[in-house]
């Protein structure tokens, strides 16, 4: 009974998008949630393809991918995990590229708390410092590098609370349960302005560059929508969104 309707719908879709509208499943690192939503919307409008995105920490997503999760494109928060996907035979070799370079920020929901972030960290004038799980989240790893560079690893250890992804870390700070936390700059800034609270953009010299690589997974090797999305990420429109959120290229 429903078949004629389905056929009719399918015809309509193929008429409105002569380039055969497809669907692509993307695993996206949590720090890239907001820009990805913007990019996906623009991509869907421009190409007619549908984007189904799942967000989580890079390690979390990789564990899922290595166990057969049906993702076709992987946008990680580092460059080592996509490289590993490739060497583990999970990704199409040669498809890797850096779609964004992340920046780390020390952030507080309290607008008056952070003026000099390094000074605040040294003073230890807070109960809790939230970071993302360094084992699975590259921004968490970067946070530990910063504390190490400042020689504060020992001093700050008792104050650390861990979010399972940078998204949860943000939530700990946003709810005020942790006064400060290391989050992705993209989560708290728009067009070069801090959107709420106070923040310190951590100097790039204090942590290894967060090169965020994308890779085409084997499951998406024959999906033209997946290839189109990766192309789109390299394009100007995506670049504009990406830099609006405070990433480098």
């Amino acid at each position, binding site marked *: 009974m429903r078949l004629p309707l389905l056929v009719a719908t399918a015809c309509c879709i193929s008429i409105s998008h002569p380039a055969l509208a497809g669907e692509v499943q993307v695993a996206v690192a949590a720090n890239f949630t907001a820009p990805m939503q913007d990019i996906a919307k623009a991509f869907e409008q421009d190409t007619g393809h549908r984007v189904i995105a799942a967000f989580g*920490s890079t*390690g*979390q997503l990789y*564990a899922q991918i*290595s166990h057969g999760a049906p993702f076709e494109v992987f946008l990680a928060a580092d460059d080592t995990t996509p490289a590993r996907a490739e060497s583990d035979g999970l990704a199409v070799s040669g498809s890797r590229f850096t779609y964004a370079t992340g920046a780390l920020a020390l952030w507080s929901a309290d607008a008056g708390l952070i003026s000099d972030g390094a000074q605040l960290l040294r003073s230890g004038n807070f*109960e*809790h410092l*939230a970071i993302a*799980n360094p*084992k*699975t989240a590259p921004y968490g790893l970067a946070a530990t590098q910063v504390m190490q560079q400042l020689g504060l690893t020992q001093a700050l250890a008792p104050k*650390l*609370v*861990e*979010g*399972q992804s940078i998204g949860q870390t943000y*939530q*700990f700070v946003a*709810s*005020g*349960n*942790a006064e400060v936390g290391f989050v992705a700059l993209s989560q708290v800034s728009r067009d070069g302005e801090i959107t709420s609270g106070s923040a310190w953009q951590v100097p790039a010299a204090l942590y290894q560059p967060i090169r965020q690589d994308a890779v085409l997974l084997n499951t998406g090797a024959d999906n033209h929508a997946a290839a189109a999305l990766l192309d789109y990420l390299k394009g100007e429109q995506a670049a504009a969104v990406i830099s609006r959120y405070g990433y480098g290229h």
Partner: protein
Amino acid sequence: MSLPLDSADLAAIWLTLKLASLTTVVLLLIGTPLAWWLAHTRSRLKGPIGALVALPLVLPPTVLGLYLLVALGPNGPIGALTEQLGLGTLAFSFGGLVIGSVCYSMPFVVQPIQNAFEAIGKRPLEVAATLGASPLDRFFTVALPLARPGIITASVLGFAHTLGEFGVVLMIGGNIPERTRVVSVQIFNHVEAMDYASAHWLAGGVLVCSFVILLLLNRRGRLTVMPGARR
């Protein structure tokens, strides 16, 4: 071969046992009077309060966790209170986990005790009253002993359910060793880091432990006749 659990795993096990025990004790102290009230009241509040107690049975732990995180934070009602009292905020602390677990395991303790009280009926208490027992006396020397099987079931279920708590702890715990990193979270950490061997040891332990607890409970249940259930 030595036990493939490292000190972090053992700390997580110890913390979990501590959390489950303390939660059970707190729940018995709060839950018993509450169950008594629910079993005997004719108040219009009985329905809403009973539903409130049962909520954690159906709510996703993330909902509970989210509201606890907000409530415990400096801007939330509980957080504001604890800060006033000079306790600081309770998120990311063992105390916070106890509060979370008490909410989370509440129905598993209150409902069996309530059922037991209801099953006793009015008769034994009325008889005790005619023999001159005060209300408090009736509660402690008649109702409580008769409700014993229900209370034991409640303790075991409360303990076992808290052992398996995950979502709430993940939301309000912050994964701190020896303070909020319980076994379920540690298993999650191992899986996330793709250390499956350690994950298996801990997960297998939880599985066996939970099975044995339920098995013992079942045995007991068959051996003990619920007093008053004969009506």
